[in-house]
Every structure is written in C-alpha cells, then in structure tokens.
C-alpha cells in the first residue's frame, strides 16, 4: 500500500534501504549511514516479466487499496440458523463441497467418504456401496461451496437437510453460510460415514439446529468480528485453535438458549455438545472470513487473493482481479502431528475451505497469537512469532480489528498479494486438520501446509495478461 512519505531528497542525510549487492550496504555502513538491508531472494522462476507487468499496472495500487479496504470494513454478524434447503436452496441430490470444482472420479478418500455419508444421511442410499454406486454413476449434483457464498471445513460437504449458520456483513449487506461443526474424530467432514456419524448429523438437524436458530433469533445479530478480535487475545488463532471463541459464542447465546421453551435435556445436550467441541466456532469464523474476502472480490487490477480452498485433490486460489477463475495445483500433504498410531502414510492431501481463515489474515497468519499450539510450527514460541511476521511480507494490510498482543498489538497480516508471494517465494502458511486418506477413516492429525507455488505463478501470469503493457 502506498505511503507517500515524499521526503525531500537533499535536505537531510539519507537513510537508505538497500537491496542487492552487499557491497553497497557495507559501503554505506562504512560511511556511517543508517542502512536497512533487504534479505532479497529471486522471485519464483520464470515470473520476472509477469511480475513487472502486474506491478506496473496503473490500476494495481488503488485497486488493492479499495479491495482490501472493503475486506477490513466487513462486519460479519450471525443472523440466523437454517437448513441448507432453505439457506442455499439445495434440492435433494444436490451437494456442495470444499475447494475448487471436482468430480467423483478425481475425488480423494475423505471427499468420497463425506459424500457417501451425506447420501446416507439424506436417505438417498441405504448402504455405503449403494451410495458409492450412485455417486460414481454421476447421479449427484456436485458444486463448490465457494460458488454459492458458502464455505465448509475439510470435505465441506453440505446436503439439503444440514443446518447452516447464516452470517450477514452489515457493512456490505451480503450474506455467507457454513454448516454446523460436528466435533472431532470420526466425523463426516473428515470422510467418516459410519452410523455414529450419520446419527450425530440427524441429531444436529433435529435438535441442535432448531435450538440455535431460536436462540440466535431471540438474541439478535451476534457480532462475530468482536468475538474473533477477543479470541486472538485469548490464545486462539481461529483455525486450529477455537477454544476461547467457542466459549465466548456460547456465553453470548446461552441465556437465549436456556430461556427458550425447549426440553432441558435437549438444552443440556446442546450446551454439552458446543462446549465440548473446541472447534465449534471454526464454522462461525470461516463464514465471517468468507464475507470479508467476498467484499474484496472483482476489483480489476487487484492482486488480492480472495479465496484459498482445497478439495483433497487440488488446491485452488481465486484473485480479486480475475473474477471467479480458479488457479489450481496439486494439494500437498500437511506436515503435522498425528493422532494415536496414525502417521504420514495415512494422511490425505490438504482438504477444506478453512484456509479462508488464512486468506482473511487469521489462522496460520495469526500463529503468534496462539502460543499454546506452537508445536505445529516447530515447538517454540519464537517460531510462532516468526511465522506471523513472515506473513506481513506477502500481505497488503494489517487488520486493526484483529490484533496480536505479543507483537505489541500489531494487526494481523491481512490480504495475501499474489505478486508479493511470487516475488518473495514466501507461501501462505496454513494451519489445518489432517484427514485420513481412506474414505471412512476420519481425522488422523493436524499440522501445517502451504499451497503449491503454481497457483500463484499462474495467477500472476493471468493478471499480467489482463494488465495494460508496461
């Protein structure tokens, strides 16, 4: 972003930023000049011309300012909880999924498992085999959540009977949706589809969803941005740790939950379920992030990344300056910590829309806020601080609403700039859960992953093509 410092050149002794030959840095230091050297590395191979063209695009600076300005201005509120059939207009046989578009043939184990589970849950098949046969025959309508203003963690599979959080960006008047979080372990979003998975989904639709709906409607809009701001000051980063956020959300709606005229055993079950699931709030901060990033869309010339999403096979990104086009590459296997006897051989490549959190500047980008989970980034608090600091190199802004106490309340690094990624070779750091690669397994671990570099080099190439000649 432009900071028109405009210092008169000749009136003061210069203070110099150097980039390139060390010799000149030393030479300035020898002259007792204040020097700030840049630790420069070449950009990603083959991108120099594209980069120059993109950086020379006269629209870029202003377009990015506008796009990221709207991202920062977004004010997400939870306004309703409704079934996907109403919220998204989903019909039987229609499913939404995480990541860029994919068909059954290329779908990974957990994506297939989740689709099988959703078929069983919707009563479209009686057995997993039957469900699989239908899906393999192309009798289901699959489309990415992102194409419908929705996001879903891990497999992100949404079917008509699932209940959705409905969020409104009160600044921009837009809405976004996300399913309710099922908890950890053997759950649909990790590709499990056993009876306990389907039973839990049924209970969520029959009991939890309506209770939350009544509570939210009675409470009125719940300010999700305010909860995210506070959770970052309580040790959550909003992707792999959502404990404080979950409890604050529960605190917010608990009076209305209790005051509703529901059977006390149902209320107790619902409270137990939410309080016992440290990731419940993930499905609220994700659509909040989705609203923020949707606000940044469609700004010609802008290099802002507005979505990062994975379907378990491909990693895809979308960029403000090039509309709905996906730039995809092979999803990587996360580097992480494993549950029980599971190990890297059991891991599926990266999956889920939850990277929308990093896209919006929390999650892995706010790692410094979450010292409790530094084991994911190398084990030491300094690693977490460095992880966040590194992300400032590839982002356009700092979010004044989301602050990191240990970095002197610096705003989180917000708004990934594809040009900066390609220039520095620094890839966005994503915190993530790890799904088992065999359909039906569920979660096997959690860790860190980065997108494939080709997403960014392709995006820069496309932006270069759309830019006027230098």
């Amino acid at each position, binding site marked *: *972003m*432009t*900071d*028109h*410092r*405009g*210092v008169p*050149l*000749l009136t*003061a*002794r*210069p*203070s*110099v*930023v150097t*980039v*390139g030959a060390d*010799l*000149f840095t030393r*030479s*300035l230091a*020898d*002259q007792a*000049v*204040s020097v*700030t*050297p*840049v*630790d420069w590395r*070449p950009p990603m191979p083959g991108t*120099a011309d594209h980069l*120059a063209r993109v*950086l*020379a695009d006269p629209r870029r*600076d202003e377009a990015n300012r506008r796009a990221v300005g709207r991202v920062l201005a977004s004010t997400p509120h939870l306004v309703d909880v409704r079934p996907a059939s109403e919220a998204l207009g989903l019909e039987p046989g229609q499913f939404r999924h995480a990541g860029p578009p994919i068909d059954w043939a290329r779908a990974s184990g957990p994506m297939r498992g989740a689709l099988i589970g959703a078929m069983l849950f919707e009563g479209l098949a009686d057995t997993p085999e039957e469900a699989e046969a239908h899906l393999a025959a192309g009798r289901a309508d699959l489309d990415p959540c992102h194409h419908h203003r929705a996001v879903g963690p891990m497999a992100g599979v949404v079917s008509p009977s699932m209940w959705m959080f409905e969020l409104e960006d009160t600044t921009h008047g837009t809405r976004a949706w996300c399913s309710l979080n099922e908890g950890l372990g053997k759950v649909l979003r990790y590709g499990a589809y056993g009876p306990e998975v389907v039973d839990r989904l049924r209970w969520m639709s029959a009991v939890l969803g309506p209770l939350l709906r009544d509570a939210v409607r009675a409470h009125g809009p719940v*300010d999700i*941005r*305010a*909860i995210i*701001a*506070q959770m970052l*000051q309580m040790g959550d980063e909003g992707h792999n740790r959502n404990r404080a956020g979950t409890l604050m959300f529960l605190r917010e709606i608990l009076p209305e939950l209790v005051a509703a005229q529901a059977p006390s055993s149902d209320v107790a079950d619902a409270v137990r379920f939410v309080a016992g699931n440290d990731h419940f709030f993930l499905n609220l901060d994700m659509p909040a992030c989705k609203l923020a990033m949707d606000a940044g869309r469609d700004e010609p010339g802008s290099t802002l990344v507005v979505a990062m999403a994975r379907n378990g096979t491909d990693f895809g990104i979308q960029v403000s300056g090039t509309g709905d086009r996906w730039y995809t590459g092979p999803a990587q296997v996360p580097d992480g910590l494993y549950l029980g006897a599971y190990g890297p051989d059991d891991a599926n490549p990266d999956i889920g829309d939850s990277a929308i959190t990093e896209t919006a500047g929390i999650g892995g980008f706010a790692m*410094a806020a979450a010292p409790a989970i530094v084991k994911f980034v190398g084990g030491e*608090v300094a690693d977490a*601080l460095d992880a966040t*600091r*590194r992300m400032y*190199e590839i982002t356009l802004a700092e979010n004044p*609403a989301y*602050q990191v*106490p*240990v970095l*002197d*309340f*610096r*705003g989180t690094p917000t708004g990934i700039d594809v*040009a900066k990624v390609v220039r520095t070779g*620094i890839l966005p750091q994503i915190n993530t859960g790890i799904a088992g690669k065999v359909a039906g397994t569920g979660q096997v671990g959690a860790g860190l992953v980065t997108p494939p570099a080709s997403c960014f080099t392709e995006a820069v190439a496309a932006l270069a093509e759309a830019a006027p*000649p*230098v």
Partner: protein
Amino acid sequence: MSSSVLEVRRGAYRDSVSLMQVSRAVSAVDGVGQALVAMATELNLDLLEGLGFERPSAAGPNDMLVAVHAEDDDALRRGLARLEEALNAPAAAGGDIASGTPPRTVRTAAAASDATLALVSVPGPNAFAEAVDALDSGLHVMVFSDNVPLAEEIRLKDLGAERGLLVMGPDCGTAVVGGVGLGFANTVRPGPVGIVAASGTGSQEFMCLLHAAGSGISHCLGVGGRDLSEAVGGRSTRQALAVLDADPATELIVVVSKPPAPAVAAEIARYAATLSTPVQLALLGAGRDDLTAAAAKALAALGVEHGGWPSWRPAQAHPARPGALRGLFCGGTLCDEAMVIASATLGPIASNIPLEPAWALPPGLRAPGHLMIDFGDDTLTAGRPHPMIDPGLRLARLADELADPETGVVLLDVVIGPGAHDDPATGIADVLRAAGPDRPHVVVSLCGTDEDAQGLDAQARTLTAAGAEVYLSNAEAARRAVSLVGGSGPEPRTEPRTEPRTEDGTDHGIENGTEHGTEHGAEHVIEHGTADRDDRAAGTEGTHA
C-alpha cells in the same frame, strides 16, 4: 459552558488495558474533565453512570463506550481528536520480541526504518519490483541495476514524478547525496557544484577532477544512461535539475552526459534556462570538450584556480614498443572518452560500445588492431557483478593482451571510492608482474580522491611499482597511450612545461590549463613526481615508487 458527549461504537473491540491508556490520554487533554473509553461491560456501564451519563439502552460487551466531559466545545473537540489519534496509533511495526526475520522486500524494510532513499542493485529483470516498492513506500530510489527494460524505466520515472520522488537510474552507477556515496562513488569534499549525471564513471571522473583542483560538490544525482534518450526524454534529468536548483548549497549545475537526442537536448536546454542556478552542459563526444576540459570550465566559472592534474610514473621507464592500442575499461564513459580521443589520431577503434557501428567487435570481443572494451557494459554484466566489484574477467583479458605480440600499449581505468573493490590496483599489478619484462606498455587512468578509503596515492604507487604510468585525468591517460603507440597526433597534453611558474601562479589558471594543455605547477611536480618532461624517459626521479 461545559460540554459532553456519549457515543456507543458497535463492534469495535479493544482490550481493556489499551482502552485504559486511551482514556488516560483523552483525560490528559487540556480542558477535558473526565473521559471513559471502555467496552460496555456491566462494570463500565456502572462507571458511566457514576460519571453522570445516562446508561445507553442497547450496549453490550462488544461495543465501545466513549464518554467525555469537557469544559467547553473546543476542549471536547480536542479530546475527541486525541481519542482518534490514540485509537488509531499504529502498533510498532517491529514487535521486537525475539525478532529474527530480516525484511524480504523494500516495502517491509521501508516500513521498519526511517529510510528516505532506496538503493536497488538486484538483477535487472527483478529491479522493477523493488523500485516500485520504494516509490510505493514514499522513498526516492536509485536503481543501480542495468538490463532493465526501457518501458519499465519510463513507467518508474512517471510514477516517481507523480509522487514527487526522484528515480535515479536504471543503470545509475553513481550518486552522492548529502555527502553519502551511493553505488560507485568517490569521497569528495563539499563544494558548490551540483552534478546531474547520465553517466556514472563520467560523473566520478568529473567530481574527482574538481576535488583534485581543491573544489567540491554539493550533490551528484544520477539519472541513468538512457535518461536523455529520445524514448525517456530526460524525465529524471528535469527532476534532478529542479531539485538541485532548489538546493542552496548548489551554485553551479553541471549535466554530464553523452550528447542527448537533439530534441531532448533542446528541451533540457530550454528547461535549464528557466532555472535560477547556472547550468553547464558537459556533453561528451567527438569534437566536444572531454571531461577534463569540462571540469576546467566549471572551475573557471567558479573562479577556482588549479595547477593541472596529478600523474605518477614508475621508477623505471618501460620501453615503448609498436603495436595496437588495447583499452580495457570498467567505466563506460571513460572508455567512450578514450575512444573519442584515440580515434581522432588512430582511426577506427573496435569496441563492444563502438563509436561507429562499423567498428563493433565480434561477439568473442577479439579483433586485430586497436580495440577498447567496456567490461561494465550490460552485455558483459548480465548474471555477473560489475568489473569494479569483480575484476576477474578484465584481469584475464589483461593477461591475454599483455601476452599478445600485437599489443603495443594497454590502457586501463582503475576506479576507487565507496562501492568499488578494496584494492583494484594489486590485482592489476600482479598481472603486470606475471607478464614479464617484455610486456607492452601500460597506462592507467586512475579515478579517485585522496579521501577515498582505498587511498589514491597508495593505488597509484602499487601500479607504478609494477611499471604502469598513472594519470588522474582519463583524457590525459588516453592521449599518453595514443602517443605511446606512435600515433602521429599531437603530443599528449600531460607533460609539464619547463617554463617556471609565474609568481602569482596564474598560468596554472583555468584558461591555460584547459585550452592549451594542463600544466603541472611546482607543487604537483614535487608531490606526484612528474617533473620529467620527456615522456619516453619518464619517471627516473622523484616518484613515490
């Protein structure tokens, strides 16, 4: 008349400790009685009531309360202004706790420092990105890198002009700003001359000559070798002229460049005429003043007298031998100037930067006859450091030329000062010694000042000890080399006359020195040991060797 305000800011969360600091800052404003800036928790709502405000009907713990009592409207306004300031004060960009990550782009380096200027010397194809960052961050920028596409240069300069920032370069080798040498520069005493240079080594030569004559420079602003081309149109030159015109320390502006495109030259001359500071155009080329003559003119204009330019001779005169003149240069302008001087006498000089297209060297840069190579040219620096930093390529060629029976004289430049190699003379001296006693004559143009860290005199002595002749003036060195290969042209103008100085020393003045050959005053003779007027038997006495 007291004045109060109560505001509820929805969804504007801050932690309580920060807000207590904000409250304190607002309360401290003159005329503000009490201020409460806090999240609307029960506790804070009670406090609000305690301050005599009515409890707002719908305010929760996610909403920020702003309540201020002040003695009048003015004080209230000041208090609220302070509030915004305190709320929006950016956190220190450092977050210095265990900071271990150096900045990776100019943008982040600029944000973390009080920088006013960026010096970009990454490979040419990558320079644009860093330079744009500098401009986006409000920094002036010097782009040392060459091999930057023309369109990118124009874009950078337009962007700079829009933002009131000077873009020096691309391919800007030299700048001196506020006494600080950027890129390849020299340590020159402060003085009245402001230089605008489209030529790096040209400006270095120029400032070193001024320094040797006892004068100095205010600033030297580079603009890049292509700035005065038709395509770039002098974009940076105009800006640099304006900046120097506004600088009170600058009494005379000198533009050092090869002759610009005629339309651009006319435009620059027109612009220069509008300035309040006199502008001297030192445009180099055949039939024009060389840099030495231009420096003398500048000194004359300033009323500075000087007594000729220093030179150094070896103790043992090296025997001359017939053959071709081979010039091996780091500085493009020095090479160009030497070719202009040599070709006037010797005819065609083959080169990788030829004066005439027909004189171009073939790709291997080998040819019979006279030739001069600019090792700092774009084509020879792609993917490799500049020869002023890494002398390897030129030293290898020097060894070849010394071993070539066709070579009569080798002419070299040695450029010192901030940025340049720590000791370029020693590498050359080693090659000269290794070449044995029958090697060709070697003449060196030494560009530097006695304040440069490498030591002007020490470098000269190292070279003379290995048998080279050394001249501060590149033009003099070139003329000397031409005379040594038996050029039928005029005797080099380097030699001191035997006539005694006039008592007041006026014959060492500008007019004589530049128009009729530079004279060495007695002091210079003693200091630099160039008393012997017969160049072929030079250096038998009084040298430092």
